[in-house]
């Protein structure tokens, strides 16, 4: 696994990306760009679930943070259990991807950003009633004003990148 993640052309690239991005696994295979449509298909399913289970509802998020509804806890809890069993089985059985590549995992390192940034995201989550995924689903359902929230979130990410060296980590 370690060897796998170290295969990068530019060490700086790896350094920057591994610090906090989710995906530092690089494929050795070169696929045409339209192979990415398989991820679009998974995204479509995710978007439908978001809407149909009212996960992107501002009201459901408010109920969650007021302990007025079990719904969101049930959704996230079930997702974690299903995800954990899947990851366990993939590791245990050394399952490979459909293209025959190894599936790799990397450990997350603790830094104070997970607390400070986590609290900030929590504030934003309760205000907008949405995490980044639901924002895109909300826009998809036709609430065009959410584009403002998304642009502001992009600006927030940019500002973080700009101030990064000055922030406690």
């Amino acid at each position: 696994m370690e060897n796998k993640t170290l295969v990068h052309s530019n060490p700086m690239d790896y350094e920057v990306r591994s610090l906090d991005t989710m995906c530092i696994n690089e494929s050795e295979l070169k696929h045409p760009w339209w192979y990415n449509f398989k991820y679009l298909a998974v995204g479509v399913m995710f978007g439908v679930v978001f809407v149909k289970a009212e996960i992107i509802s501002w009201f459901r998020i408010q109920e969650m943070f007021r302990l007025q509804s079990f719904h969101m806890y049930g959704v996230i809890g079930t997702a974690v259990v299903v995800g954990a069993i899947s990851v366990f089985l993939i590791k245990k059985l050394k399952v490979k991807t459909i293209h025959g590549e190894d599936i790799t995992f990397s450990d997350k390192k603790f830094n104070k950003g997970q607390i400070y940034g986590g609290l900030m995201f929590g504030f934003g989550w309760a205000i907008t009633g949405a995490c980044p995924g639901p924002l895109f689903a909300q826009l998809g359902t036709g609430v065009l004003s959410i584009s403002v929230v998304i642009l502001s979130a992009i600006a927030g990410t940019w500002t973080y990148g700009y101030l990064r060296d000055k922030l406690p980590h």
Partner: protein
Amino acid sequence: MIETITQPWPWYVAGTLIGLIVPALLLLGNKHFGISSNLRHICAACFPSNIPFFKYDWKKESWNLFFIGGILVGGFLSAQFLGSSEPIIVHPDLAKELAGYGIDDFSGLVPVQLFSFDNLFTAKGLIMMIGGGFLVGFGTRYAGGCTSGHAIMGLSNLQWPSLVATISFMVGGFIMANFILPYILSL
């Protein structure tokens, strides 16, 4: 059958399907579930501004942009074809509290009385849409992930820093919803 699909789906169906996204992305191409990174990829693609944090080959992560493109399409499809026209059933205590702030329209997933272009230039709208969005973008990147990357993918892979992040998300949300948001909604 159609009836079942157009009704709101229960938590165990939604949770299972979302949980299955984790192995689906791993099996399709060794990809780790995470959404907020896309905000970074968009910065890297559009406004890198010579900031080291945005100087990487974002095209290698373009699968993730396709993924959120899919979420957008999924939202559109379900609103168009799988929708129930029933308003969201809101907990009576929440409905009562919101009514006190003049929010009584529960017809959409997003309260139209708070999130709209008309509200953008009011104090409340500015704080909620611009301020809230900014906190989501800044906070998720500072924390290194959001609900998908930390709470679902990170916890599924038994990463304790992800548990710290998830607890911080929830603590922040509780503080905001119960102690600060009431003042914002009263504006």
